[in-house]
């Protein structure tokens, strides 16, 4: 029965995984999600998304006029930028439970978890820099703005990898008693596909591929948002199911 556990040396996995506190981390997700949505909506640059075709003067004027909006929302994002990491690690823990022979998928997932928030924070810093000295040369402000937007839009490699790795991990899992249902795998591949256009943001200053466009902005961010909600629910279900199993096993031991 312990074959669902880690795949290290056989004989080690009679001990159950420590799962205390995971529910607390799980339930931070709705809180973080609300804060993220608030920061997203508060950032004047997202509502509506700034156009890449704005001349330097206009960009400088934007940061002058929206100084506080930019600062507050970006500070909020800076605080909670890594707020989703517990959810991602909960996913890693569930991957460890899958019927894989090696921890390769879990390790790869860990790598992805490290990359995404880092890039987001770089973008965050760039936007905050742009708003710090609005009296700066407009071309300089525009450059910081460019860095922020390009980094924010192109941070997709780790998100794509995350989804693909999770999908593969699910497909490689035991089919009779999977940790995640197979459709979660399909969903992740769909999300990965949705994030692909954003990688090409450099190619256009206007249109759907530009950083304010339908593909690079709306599709990407909506896909990320939907992913957070769906995976939050899926992980939540997996975590609760695991706890139920442990309780059951505990009762069996007691009655044995």
């Amino acid at each position, binding site marked *: 029965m312990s074959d669902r556990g880690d795949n290290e040396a056989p004989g080690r996995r009679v001990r159950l995984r420590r799962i205390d506190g995971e529910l607390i981390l799980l339930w931070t997700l709705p809180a973080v999600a609300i804060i993220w949505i608030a920061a997203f909506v508060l950032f004047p640059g997202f509502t509506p998304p700034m156009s890449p075709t704005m001349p330097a003067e206009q960009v400088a004027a934007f940061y002058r006029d929206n100084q506080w909006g930019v600062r507050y929302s970006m500070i909020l994002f800076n605080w909670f930028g890594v707020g989703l990491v517990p959810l991602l690690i909960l996913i890693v823990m569930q991957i460890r439970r899958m019927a894989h022979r090696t921890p390769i998928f879990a*390790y790869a997932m860990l790598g992805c978890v490290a990359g995404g928030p880092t890039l987001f924070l770089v973008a965050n810093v760039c936007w905050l820099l742009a708003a710090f000295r609005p009296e700066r040369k407009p071309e300089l402000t525009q*450059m910081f703005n460019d860095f922020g937007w390009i980094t924010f839009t*192109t941070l997709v490699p780790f998100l794509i990898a995350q989804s693909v790795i999770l999908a593969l991990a699910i497909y490689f899992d035991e089919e009779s008693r999977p940790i995640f249902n197979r459709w979660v795998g399909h969903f992740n591949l769909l999300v990965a596909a949705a994030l692909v256009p954003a990688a090409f943001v450099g190619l256009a200053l206007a249109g759907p591929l530009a950083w304010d466009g339908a593909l690079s902005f709306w599709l990407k961010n909506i896909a990320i948002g939907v992913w957070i909600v769906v995976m939050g629910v899926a992980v939540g279900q997996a975590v609760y199911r695991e706890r139920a199993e442990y309780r059951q096993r505990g009762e069996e031991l007691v009655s044995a």
Partner: protein
Amino acid sequence: MSRARHNPKRELWLAWWTLVVFYNFFFPVFFVVTRVQPPPSPAWDIARQVQWFRAHHFGILVGFAVVFLIAGMTTMCNALIAYSMRRMSVSPVFAYSYLVMYSLSAVPGLLLLCIALTVGALRPERDPELIGWIYDFAFLSFTGTMGVFLIGSLVWMLAILTDKNRVFPKWFGYLNLCNALTEVVVAPSWIFKRGVLAWNGQIAWWLDVVVFGFYTGVFILMLRRLIQREDFGTGPLPDLAPNKVAAL
């Protein structure tokens, strides 16, 4: 059990092939599509740098778009190398240290260049001085991100040399030292704007790339052999030679 039905090495081979595919994209993208390697000279004046951006405009934007798609593949590569250290007789500390170091290496050591050059190419009419700043930022961050690869290689080297499971031959451990030393040799690129030690110099770039290329080719082969030999035990890894009896 599904494990008996499927080949248990499937996921290892998946990781290995991801690694191979990644480098098959990486080298053409950097050397052919974007042509940012071999790098242009830090000694050029700003006008020449702006000209470089113009000449490489489309290649940069398309090539790095590809990198933004596939950079996540490096996580599978690092996972496989970390796994090789888990198979060794040494503490898991080595594997996890390596995994963390190399996971965060992609941002300063690869993606910053891609982002910076994309921003640089985005607006050809940008103030030339700013383009000059972006030029420096891109190439220095790329070649000049040394610590993660230096210490990471040393961690792998230490793991290999103290390993009793013979996962890798000792000479491969020493080769990691050679790779780590290239990160020492590239340090002067932060100081010199011309000559053999500049970021495009014969020693700091050309020779280092030869060593790095050789090292990469070798570790790809080593990982392949590891997967072939893998017996999922915890003792010494059996050899591949057909007349050798497996250790376990």
